[in-house]
């Protein structure tokens, strides 16, 4: 007569190894990445190779057809500068500075126009955010 063998108790999968791996990944992302404000998905940043590096921009985005976007919604120079002034009021005395993140295919004339408008609205230091190509 054939009798079933007694079943072996299944060994529990070791969770320690799993935790180790996840922990390593966590540490990797902590060290290797930089926390960044969300970038506008419609804008492909200008590439540079040599410019001085900077922290991820919280900037005024300009799409390739010249629309202005900030914090994910469309805006214009006036309301962007108003908001910028409110945000930086705490550190009074320092010159108002803004970052512009333009699409790489935006006509340069339009970019210069927007920079001029920003300057006319009272922003003293304007820089263009770019992404550094890998070296």
């Amino acid at each position, binding site marked *: 007569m054939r009798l079933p063998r007694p079943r072996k108790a299944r060994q529990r999968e070791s969770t320690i190894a799993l935790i180790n791996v996840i922990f390593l990944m*966590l540490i990797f992302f902590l060290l290797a*990445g930089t926390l*960044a404000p969300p970038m506008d998905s419609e804008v492909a940043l200008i590439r540079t190779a040599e*410019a001085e*590096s900077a922290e991820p*921009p919280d900037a005024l985005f300009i799409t390739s057809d010249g629309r202005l976007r900030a914090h994910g919604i469309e805006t214009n120079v006036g309301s962007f500068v108003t908001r910028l002034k409110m945000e930086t009021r705490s550190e009074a005395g320092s010159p108002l500075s803004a970052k512009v993140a333009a699409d*790489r*295919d935006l006509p*340069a004339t339009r970019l210069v126009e927007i*920079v001029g408008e920003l300057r006319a609205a009272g922003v003293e230091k304007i820089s263009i955010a770019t992404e550094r190509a890998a070296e």
Partner: protein
Amino acid sequence: MRIEFATQRRRPLPLTSLIDVIFLLLLFFMLSSTFTRFAEVEVAGGRASSTVAAAQPDILIRIEDGIWTINGRDFPEADAISELKRLQDNGASKAVLLVRGDMTSQTMVSALERVRRATGLMLSVAR
């Protein structure tokens, strides 16, 4: 008579909740961090009105299809920088990059960056 308590068996640490938390942290950092390196290029100038007229630039640069026109003379891109250096050695200090036609932002910023890096000219942008 003294009776020893039965030694309690230590329960294993609950690992599930620990994994949950670490997993959440991992997800958060994976989604919110970026590996792109950013840089910034400062722009001076803006409209070709007051600032440029007042400053009286020594050098005018125009770029069209990779040809740099510096004070009216055409140079290929490689020679343009050395020409700018030569002008700077001869006493020029202010330069203006004229933005015309269908130049893209990428071209403009690349040119700004190259000139800034290679020379000490005060470069501004005008239309």
